[in-house]
């Protein structure tokens, strides 16, 4: 479980500074954009196929979810046909792909609503949380990593090491439960479970689906403060895991740069240490660091199931999990498409970044 999500309880992205990630990037860089796109869409298709097969072999009966406990056999059979489950699997699969291409993800059986609508609702919740978590990870993790590298073996380095170690080792659901208990239950510093105070429910018109943004757009400060007080704890939690990873990666990138010849030359020339670090070394790690951040962001977007469950956060991760456990395969497939697209987009993004920023690839 290396590329463990925040969900798995471990670090986002790769759990460690990972040489293979960079190898993969080099490999990617060599390919053309078109080739990348092609292979990524193949990946996406494969992802769907795997999900589809899992859905079909799963010993959970979706029909039962629809008709419920007391249904007679006749009612059950009627629903079975209505859901198209009597068609051959191949027909079902390609029918589904065709529908998806026209933007129709089918209807979820556990919410009774179109999956596209469901995703429009749950994805912004996850996106909002992941974004804030990643921001925390960046703003704390990057400086921590840089300083740790600059003062290798110093107190900050030791602290950073401990912070990261604890981050790698703490079960997220446990930390989440304890955090909720202490900061909400006992101290009352933050908002409780859920995305907003219940009385604010439906008060702010939904534009982006992200409550922080929506409340700003509506100019509703009370709603914004309320939403912020609810998101800050789960976001900090994800941010902690994210920063553990980002700070370690930053540190190792920086160490590599600081031992490079040009740094030694700059030092010999009498350049100040802070100039060496920030103007030269840091600039050079910007590109790989962006990739690391994108990876970490991607894994948070995939949905942090456990965090979402503990904080009653109605996001993508808990949506897919719920779908999985109730045999709601349209929901699972739809969610997987979104996750897959995120993966593709982030990969393309880091590819492009290399092309634009790295002079060697031109």
């Amino acid at each position, binding site marked *: *479980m290396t590329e463990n999500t925040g*969900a*798995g309880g471990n670090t986002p992205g790769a*759990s460690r500074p990972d040489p*293979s990630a960079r190898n993969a990037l080099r490999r990617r860089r060599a390919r053309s954009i078109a080739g990348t796109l092609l292979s990524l869409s193949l990946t996406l298709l494969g992802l769907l196929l795997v999900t589809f097969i899992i859905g079909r072999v799963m010993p959970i009966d979706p029909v039962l979810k629809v008709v419920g406990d007391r249904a007679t056999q006749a009612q059950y059979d009627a629903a079975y046909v209505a859901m198209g489950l009597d068609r051959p699997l191949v027909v079902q699969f390609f029918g589904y792909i065709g529908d998806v291409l026209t933007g129709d993800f089918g209807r979820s059986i556990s919410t009774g609503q179109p999956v596209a609508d469901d995703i429009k609702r749950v994805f912004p919740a996850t996106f909002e949380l992941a974004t804030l978590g990643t921001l925390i990870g960046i703003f704390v993790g990057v400086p921590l990593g840089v300083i740790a590298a600059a003062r290798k073996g110093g107190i900050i380095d030791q602290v950073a090491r401990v912070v990261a170690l604890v981050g790698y080792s*703490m*079960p997220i659901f446990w930390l989440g439960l304890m955090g909720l208990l202490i900061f909400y239950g006992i101290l009352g510093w933050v908002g409780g479970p859920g995305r907003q105070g219940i009385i604010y429910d439906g008060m702010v018109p939904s534009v982006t689906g992200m409550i922080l943004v929506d409340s700003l757009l509506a100019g509703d400060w009370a709603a914004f403060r309320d939403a912020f007080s609810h998101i800050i704890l789960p976001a900090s939690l994800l941010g902690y895991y994210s920063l553990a990873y980002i700070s370690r990666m930053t540190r*190792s990138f920086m160490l590599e740069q600081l031992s490079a010849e040009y740094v030694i030359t700059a030092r010999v020339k009498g350049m100040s240490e802070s100039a060496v670090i920030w103007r030269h070394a840091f600039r050079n790690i910007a590109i790989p660091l962006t990739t690391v951040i994108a990876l970490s962001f991607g894994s948070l977007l995939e949905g942090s199931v456990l965090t979402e469950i503990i904080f009653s956060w109605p996001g993508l991760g808990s949506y897919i999990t719920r779908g999985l456990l109730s045999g709601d395969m349209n929901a699972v497939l739809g969610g997987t498409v979104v996750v*897959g697209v995120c*993966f593709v987009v982030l990969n393309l993004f880091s590819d492009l970044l290399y092309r634009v920023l790295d002079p060697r690839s031109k």
Partner: protein
Amino acid sequence: MSNTISRRDWLLSDAPQTRRQARLGAIYQGWLTFRSNKLAMVGLIILVLLIGMAIFAPLLAPQSPYAQDLGARLQPPSAAHWLGTDGLGRDIMSRLIHGSRITLFIVGTVALIAPIIGLFIGTVAGFAGGWVDQVLMRVTDIFLAFPKLILALAFVAALGPSIGNAVLALALTAWPPYARLARAETLTIRHADFIAAARLQGAGRLRLLIRHIWPLCVSSLIVRVALDMAGIILSAAGLGFLGLGAQPPMPEWGAMISDGRTYILDFWWVAAMPGLAIFTVSIAFNLLGDGLRDVLDPKGDKS
């Protein structure tokens, strides 16, 4: 006295007489490096204790991990129950001790299966190249693109919840990074001189793969496995937390936290104790992994 010194000298000799001496010498040097890392030693000691605890669980546990006593439920830590009792009045310490077996079983099995799948797929892809490489790497990408816990959930849901299936699901979701790593290693050594030499001597592809390429990939995989152990424990605990891992009344630590969350507001120890146990063990694995990396993969980054 002189005997020991000479053995040490023998091990550290610059000019080993035999192959065996050279190999043992290398291991000894590694051990010295490892031992100088105090934190790694702490990790090792914790893990040795854990293994000891698992082996001698029935002797160490003050009570049966399954013995219920509804009259003495949710007792705080005391002389009778050092770590308190859970919602069914079972002794938490006894359950933790017996649970160490499950934890070790999970970690051990996953750590055995996942790298082997990854090693096989990665080296074959890297060595064969061409369309084989393409196909295998696409498959790897597909698994990488999947949210891990959800994929594991899907496997467990499909296979039925049990500890064995949880292990299998974790292994099936854990192999892609190993495949990537093994492939990258293979690519760098594929054109090395000694491979060409072996090929000239008439070694077949399979023989090249097994005798020459695999051994070279193993050390970086071991480092990676040691570092991933903690993640495996946490994922297993996550599955247990969702009720898809070990089945009751097995004292799996994640499931114990899940049980305990019902009582978390008033009876914190029910969830906190297994939480601490998971934390301790995964931090031990992390420390050990760091130490091992210094020994086995000195060229790797020393974060």
